[in-house]
């Protein structure tokens, strides 16, 4: 069954590419992009695209292959070598290795927003303002544009965005008479009611995830990380963080969270059979549901994020950008590819068709996108909920300049809280201690409050 679905998707993708390339192929050569006009070094970009050459692109995005094929069709002189060097941390490790080695890095790489500052501040990425990409600001949603803006430079172009939402299994909610929560207090009440009614079922699964925790702190209005050049402040007990733990501690301490690790085979099964009733995650999730949780089809729905005080507030979770590496020997060509990749209808339409959640305002606001009513979600116009959510993302959040490391040691501090069901606050303090000491060892001036 799964295989059938997969091949159907493949066919759909292939036909999409054929259609897209046929439609846009010619048009693209004429007008280099649909973005706002840019000047200056953008001439170099156009020249490089016309001249051609070979570049390497690291990405784990499923639609990357189709996007690259469409690009090569539009620019026959350019060859893009697509490499899947691993997902997320696996790729960053390899990227970091090639940077340390001084060779072997790709020209363009996919880098998630949380990791972008680390690579930007270690001077591994090209500041794209030199190619006039700062003028593309209005093409992107505010949240995603803020994510690629680091220290006054533009270090990548947003691929997708991850405004958070509450995904819930309606069948489970109906069966146990749960109300779709609008506040976190209701969410906790639902969690208790569900688990009491069915000890195998949990409101959600959380075994401690750095991305999830930081996003939840963000949504609660926390600003635990402040970065000013090499001066870093860390306060994982600020008022926003405490708002988050006040809610989440109830779930952890009462063992109301499924102990299944996220993205494991057990987890996918749990999403399908109703033992994991909700997911609090980024807007990129629907594609994963449709592709990997076939058993949940028709049951899942999307609701806005619960709030703390009834006032709508949201955060980003996940989401990627693509960036040009300093090591690239043909930065202008790399920039040209990047601009096509994340700033042309031809490319973003392939991305959206593959189930991704875009960051380009034209795609986010297009009526065809907003009116999609996938059967998987019971015909709900989920994109309207998700796009609405993107408008409430709180500003002023920043990640650490060594967030990749920080996330990699997250579970070292949080494991005992999650396995023993104790408060997250001591875990946050221990994480802070580790991050302050690491930052100082690495030459930052880090102060912990």
């Amino acid at each position, binding site marked *: 069954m799964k295989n059938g679905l997969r091949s159907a998707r493949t066919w759909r993708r292939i036909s999409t590419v054929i259609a897209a390339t046929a439609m846009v192929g010619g048009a693209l050569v004429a007008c280099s992009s649909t973005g706002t006009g840019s000047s200056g070094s953008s001439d170099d970009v156009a020249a490089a695209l016309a001249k051609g050459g070979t570049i390497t692109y690291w990405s784990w995005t499923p639609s990357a292959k189709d996007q690259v094929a469409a690009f090569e069709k539009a620019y026959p002189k350019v060859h893009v070598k697509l490499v899947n060097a691993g997902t997320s941390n696996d790729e960053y490790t390899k990227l970091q290795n090639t940077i*340390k080695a001084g060779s072997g890095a790709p020209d363009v790489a996919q880098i998630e927003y949380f990791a972008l500052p680390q690579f930007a501040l270690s001077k591994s990425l090209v500041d794209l303002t030199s190619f006039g990409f700062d003028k593309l600001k209005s093409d992107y949603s505010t949240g995603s544009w803020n994510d690629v803006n680091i220290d006054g430079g533009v270090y990548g172009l947003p691929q997708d965005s991850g405004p958070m939402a509450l995904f819930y299994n309606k069948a489970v909610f109906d069966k146990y008479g749960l109300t779709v929560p609008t506040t976190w207090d209701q969410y906790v009440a639902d969690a208790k009611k569900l688990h009491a009614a069915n000890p195998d079922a949990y409101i959600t699964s959380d075994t401690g995830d750095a991305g999830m925790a930081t996003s939840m702190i963000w949504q609660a209005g926390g600003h635990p990380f402040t970065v000013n050049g090499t001066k870093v402040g860390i306060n994982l007990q600020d008022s926003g963080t405490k708002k988050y733990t006040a809610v989440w501690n109830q779930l952890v301490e009462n063992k109301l969270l499924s102990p299944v*690790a996220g993205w494991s085979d*057990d987890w996918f*099964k749990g999403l399908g059979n109703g033992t994991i009733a909700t997911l609090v995650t980024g807007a990129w999730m629907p594609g994963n549901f449709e592709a990997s949780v076939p058993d949940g089809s028709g049951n899942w729905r999307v609701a806005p994020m619960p709030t703390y005080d009834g006032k709508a507030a949201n955060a980003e979770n996940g989401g990627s950008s693509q960036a040009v590496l300093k090591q690239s020997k043909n930065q202008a060509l790399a920039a040209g590819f990047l601009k096509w990749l994340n700033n042309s209808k031809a490319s973003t339409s392939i991305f959206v068709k593959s189930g991704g959640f875009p960051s380009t305002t034209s795609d986010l606001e297009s009526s065809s996108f907003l009116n999609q009513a996938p059967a998987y979600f019971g015909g709900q116009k989920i994109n309207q909920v998700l796009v609405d959510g993107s408008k409430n993302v709180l500003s002023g959040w920043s990640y650490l300049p060594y967030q990749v*490391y920080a996330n990699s040691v997250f*579970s*070292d501090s949080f494991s005992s809280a999650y396995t023993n069901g104790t408060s997250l606050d001591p875990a946050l303090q221990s994480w802070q201690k580790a991050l302050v000491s690491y930052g100082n060892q690495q030459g*930052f001036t880090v102060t912990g409050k």
Partner: protein
Amino acid sequence: MTTLSAARRKGQSPTARRDRKDWKGWVFIAPFAIVFLAMIVVPVVYAIYLSFFRDQLVGGNAFVGFANYVSVLSDPKFWGSLGRVSLFLVVQVPIMLVLSLIAALALDSARVHGAGFFRIMVFLPYAVPGVVAALIWGFIYGDQFGLAGNINHLLGFDLLQPLSSNWILGSIGNIVTWEFMGYNMLIFYAALKVIPTELYEAAEIDGAGAIRTVFSIKIPAVRGAIVIATIFSIIGSFQLFNEPQLLKPLAPNAISTYFTPNMYAYNLSFSGQQYNYAAAVAIVMGIITAVIAYVVQLRGTSQENR
């Protein structure tokens, strides 16, 4: 090592005396020696060199003398990881070796039906790459829907929790035992096969039973093989990496980034860019491993000579 004395004896043995004493031998040794120098000696020397520096994300590279070593020696994460593999070592290695020895003795007794079939079947897991073994067992360990979960459902309660933090060290030990039991069995079996017949004849004249033969003849006779297997198992335990690293996504709260010294060194280098500190950790680990292996070898031989 036991091999040391044996080989030294051999070096001075009368057969070797007639070999030619000139530089010609180097022609044969040279290719190996050159690659050995480049692939083992140079990296070790470089690791020692690296361990005296500190390279920061901000601020660059600086000579720090023994500062990294001082930090390692007072690093609770390092000692924690060492303690964990030591516990692993004292529990898993004896269990595995005893099981291997029992299997080898059973096969050697010639009282088992289809011994050849059993021998190859028990050995099969050795042909499975450690990565694949960890993947397979990872699926089996899933306590919701894996084989462990299947069994829990049959029983009606959660008996098996192989991925919980209390179980995880044992679960990893199980994988390692599974992979190497048959291999060690063969080593012991090969050693048992070459016990001189005279010894058995002598035992029979003494009227020794099967059990006594095992303890007074067979096991002493394969002590050398046991010592070697122990030493390699110690080295293997101290270098534990593949299994915990691949199980970590399934058990993120049971397996920390410093679960074993090798994982710690790996994560220091490749997540934290602390290459210099990682080099110091690796060197300290190397010294500890060498010392322990040496002590075990010394004890093994001294008992032999008693």
